[in-house]
């Protein structure tokens, strides 16, 4: 996985040129162009994944001993029957994303196992354009400072991964129509 500095829209050659001009001793300390304060692997601060209560770690049930892995796609009845899978083609199935061997992980198409905290990498495999926009701060919500640390949200904070369409909301009250507004004479209120 390339670092944020090279994957972001600032071309890698810019950084390369910059590094090339620096004396060798300085190269090691040269800070990444953007977002990499070193605190996070990719310089992106995300909240915890929004698990349902008591669901994680998955290995508390799926420990590989008491329950054998059944890789056959089927409607789930005994457990997780609340999950409605409405994401992409009908052939989509739990183990496309969840790892069958290590149940506390997800896996990419490449087979690489990843944590739930970096699930955006999994989403980004298909939704590359959204992933790109999200990384630069254009897709999705940002809080924090416009000129400093920003708080990102994971894809799954807004989109339920099992049925990702953004859920409709109840709108807040409309404005009062002008004929219903009373200006209080003499400011008596």
């Amino acid at each position, binding site marked *: 996985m390339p670092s944020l500095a090279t994957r972001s*829209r*600032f071309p890698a050659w810019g950084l390369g040129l910059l590094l090339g001009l620096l004396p060798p001793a300085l190269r090691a300390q040269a800070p990444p162009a*953007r977002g990499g304060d070193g605190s996070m692997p990719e310089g992106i601060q995300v909240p915890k994944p929004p698990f349902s209560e008591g669901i994680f770690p998955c290995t508390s049930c799926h420990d590989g001993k008491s329950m054998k892995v059944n890789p056959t796609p089927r409607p789930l009845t005994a457990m997780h029957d609340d999950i409605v899978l409405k994401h992409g083609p009908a052939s989509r199935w739990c183990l496309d994303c969840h790892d069958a061997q290590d149940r506390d992980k997800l896996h990419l198409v490449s087979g690489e196992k990843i944590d739930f905290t970096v699930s955006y990498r999994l989403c980004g495999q298909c939704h590359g354009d959204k992933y790109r*926009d999200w990384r*630069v*701060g*254009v*897709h*999705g*919500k*940002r*809080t*924090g*400072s*416009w*000129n*400093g640390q920003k708080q990102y*949200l994971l894809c799954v904070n*807004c989109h339920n991964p099992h049925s990702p369409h*953004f859920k*409709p*909301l*109840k*709108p*807040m*009250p*409309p*404005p*009062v*129509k002008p004929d219903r*507004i*009373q*200006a*209080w*004479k003499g*400011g*008596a*209120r």
Partner: protein
Amino acid sequence: MSETQDPRSAGSPAGCEGCGSGTSRRAFLGTAVAAVAGALVGCNNDHVEDFLQHNFRELSKAEVEEMIARLEREYKAQFGREVHVGNEPPLPGVIFGYALDLSRCIGCRRCVHACVQENNQSRDPQIQWIRVLQLDKEEGVDLRHADQYYDPPEVPEEGHFYMPVQCQQCKKPPCVKACPVGATWREKDGIVVVDYNWCIGCRYCMAACPYGARHFNWGEPHLPVEDLNPDTHLLGNRPRPKGVVEKCTFCIQRTRKGRYPACVEICPTGSRKFGNLLDPQSEIRYVLENKRVFKLKEDLNTQPNFFYFYGV
């Protein structure tokens, strides 16, 4: 003040008619001056200061500090709570820009109400700085088909899209041009502000604004104490008096301290993007460089720093 003055000044011309001599004019003026002086002595010293204050941009640093101290005293007396009135100047090298993603906004109006809470607008009579328009997908951005009073159980509604409109912080603001007294101007960071103490309430700016972004305090603003946001800015969300115009300031009290505007932080869909137009690495610049962007009523050459874009 005018109330205390009225009975006296109304009384003096009647007295002049009675005397009928050449000295009556002088006598009248004397009485009038005495009446005004009496009225001024009669009211609070803060009110006199308030009345005699100059345009904000002509005030010295010391005078601004006096003004802030006076306002904080007034608000303390009015609300019974400590109110901080800030005076953060524009940040150097910053021009604020705003972009709103029309393909994502669902018209939930969270921004409208977050703005009211943050910016101390009058709750009754109601003043809101953001107006969310519901538009027909078939018609596109055609304001003749706009409805701001939609109220279905759930949004977005089929066949519609939503366009929030607020102050566009124009580079050539017609409101500033129209103001006869210079009570509104564009700051160095691109925010168009109002000096509430200098505004005469003529509402020419409202007539000049093609976005309906300015709002007038027709009545005494009613703001419950528990709803008061005590973190304010002199040119922004401090409680306003009756008879002045107010508008969106990109949450000047927040953004000049590096925070996002309240509407950006509340938006559940992340449709609202904010940043420094002069910073090539900012989100706003990415939007302008990579997305399909338009300005509302671009043909009027108001040159807004508020952009609409399609994120998909």
